[in-house]
């Protein structure tokens, strides 16, 4: 297993690239029942993350994630700034000064993010937000870790990503209870949630990068 810090760096880099590349698409998803800014807002933060990542403090997982959280809170507007910023800051606090995380520790960090999002947005599972993709994906990862694996987690990450995509698709038909889509009431059922869909797309890209890194390591 590589250093967790390197993995976090890889994940952040992948995520940032995916968000920058998909800014318009994510914004378009938000336009259907929302206000069409989601992808642009996220990009405003993650393009800075991507550009400056090398200069961020990499001495610990917590230090790195905290810096990312600050950039997001500083640059991203709308609900996504506080939500994603809080997610990274809570993850940072949970990870602390460690440079390596065990599987269960990783899940703990992800759960801290989820709790942060939930508290910050006063949103629960089923409210039709990004939580509806993120929570099942983390559940899936937790189960895979409990079962154990010998491929460096390649299959487990892919499975989590697939779960996220399916869960995001399943937001179609759900009634939005949080976010701007909630203003449209029953009309919100007609579209998928933008945040949940973005989580699926991001996890798929992370999974591909993870596979490459593990295969690269294996050669």
């Amino acid at each position, binding site marked *: 297993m590589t250093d967790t810090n390197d993995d976090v760096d890889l994940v952040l880099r992948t995520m940032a690239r995916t968000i920058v590349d998909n800014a318009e698409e994510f914004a378009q998803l938000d336009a259907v029942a929302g*206000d069409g800014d989601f992808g642009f807002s996220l990009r405003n933060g993650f393009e800075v993350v991507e550009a400056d990542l090398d200069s961020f403090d990499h001495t610990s997982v917590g230090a790195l994630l905290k810096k990312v959280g600050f950039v997001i809170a*500083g640059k991203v507007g709308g609900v996504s*700034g506080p939500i994603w910023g809080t997610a990274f800051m809570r993850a940072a606090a949970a990870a602390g000064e460690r440079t390596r995380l065990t599987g269960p520790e990783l899940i703990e960090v992800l759960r801290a993010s989820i709790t942060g999002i939930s508290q*910050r947005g006063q949103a629960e599972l089923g409210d039709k937000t990004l939580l509806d993709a993120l929570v099942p994906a983390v559940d899936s990862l937790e189960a895979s870790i409990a079962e154990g694996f010998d491929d460096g987690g390649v299959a487990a990450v892919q499975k989590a990503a697939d779960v996220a995509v399916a869960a995001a698709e399943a937001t179609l038909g759900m009634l939005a209870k*949080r976010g701007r889509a909630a203003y449209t009431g029953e009309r919100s059922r007609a579209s998928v949630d933008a945040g949940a869909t973005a989580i699926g797309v991001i996890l798929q890209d992370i999974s591909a990068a993870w596979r490459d890194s593990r295969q690269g390591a294996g050669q």
Partner: protein
Amino acid sequence: MKKFVNDPRQFVPEMLTGIQLASGGALDYDPRYNLIYRADAPNDNKVSIIQGSGSGHEPAHTMIVGKGMLDGACPGDVFAGPPVEFVYETSKLLYSPKGILHLVNNYTGDRTAWEMAKEMCEADGMKVGALLVDDDVAVKDSTWTVGRRGVAGNFFVIKATGAASENGAELEELVRIGEKVIASVRSMGIALTSCTPPERGTPLFEIGDDEMEVGIGIHGEPGRERVKLASADEIVDILLDAVVGDLPYSSGDEVALMINGLGGTPISEQYLLYGIAHRKLADQGISVFRSYVGEYCTSLDMAGASLTLLKVDNELKELLLAPAEVSNRIF
């Protein structure tokens, strides 16, 4: 996209530069936080009042910074509330020893950013008051919903607290006045067309030539329902029914009546709506203390209008009539 724009990502900074230059030195601009603020702020003798929602609602809020109104506004990008950092840094820059008042529109994005920033300010020992504006009756208000949106009624919260603050009122007093306005103000809007964010370049939704959106938000998010385009008379009926019935306003009440253009509707149509609404209110025994017709809180280039009622008492009347100066002026 039919807009006057250079690089769409520079839309907000270039607009803010224009506001500063047009102010003749009355306003300053800090590009780090999209911040437009009074050149003479902070003023030790008055509570500072700041706001910042998404951009795209101009003149709200950057164009109504000035004497008797806001001390500063730090909007986010188009339709995105400001990042926490903008609010926190603005609060520090404009902090007065008498305290600072945060005027927040009730959107999750705005609220979370302003709440986080308030906590940060308070951790620094600052005295911060906050008001949550939520005048849009199109949205169901209950504990399990996100609550009403803040729309054009916001103007009256700024006007009243701004005037009181100019008179030297303390922070607690401003919160009391603001809460009174919020408790007395209700709005609803109707859109005839969608709107086009500069960076997106296409309208946020499609709408038929014979349709309108009732209970529209100010961010291009769809409204309560889509119905057949109606006459001005019928539209005013829809708006008045929803707004009057909500507080409710009743016979004998005195109100401020605002017809707010959403950006693409000409002032001629706004006055036409105003005349109809004024008469229909008179028919219900509700008399207009003062009229407000024009663009107060827009949704970019959306054709549409909203109607706002504010029930006034002597205190509010005086605050509404107090002088004020903003960059967005006629003379």
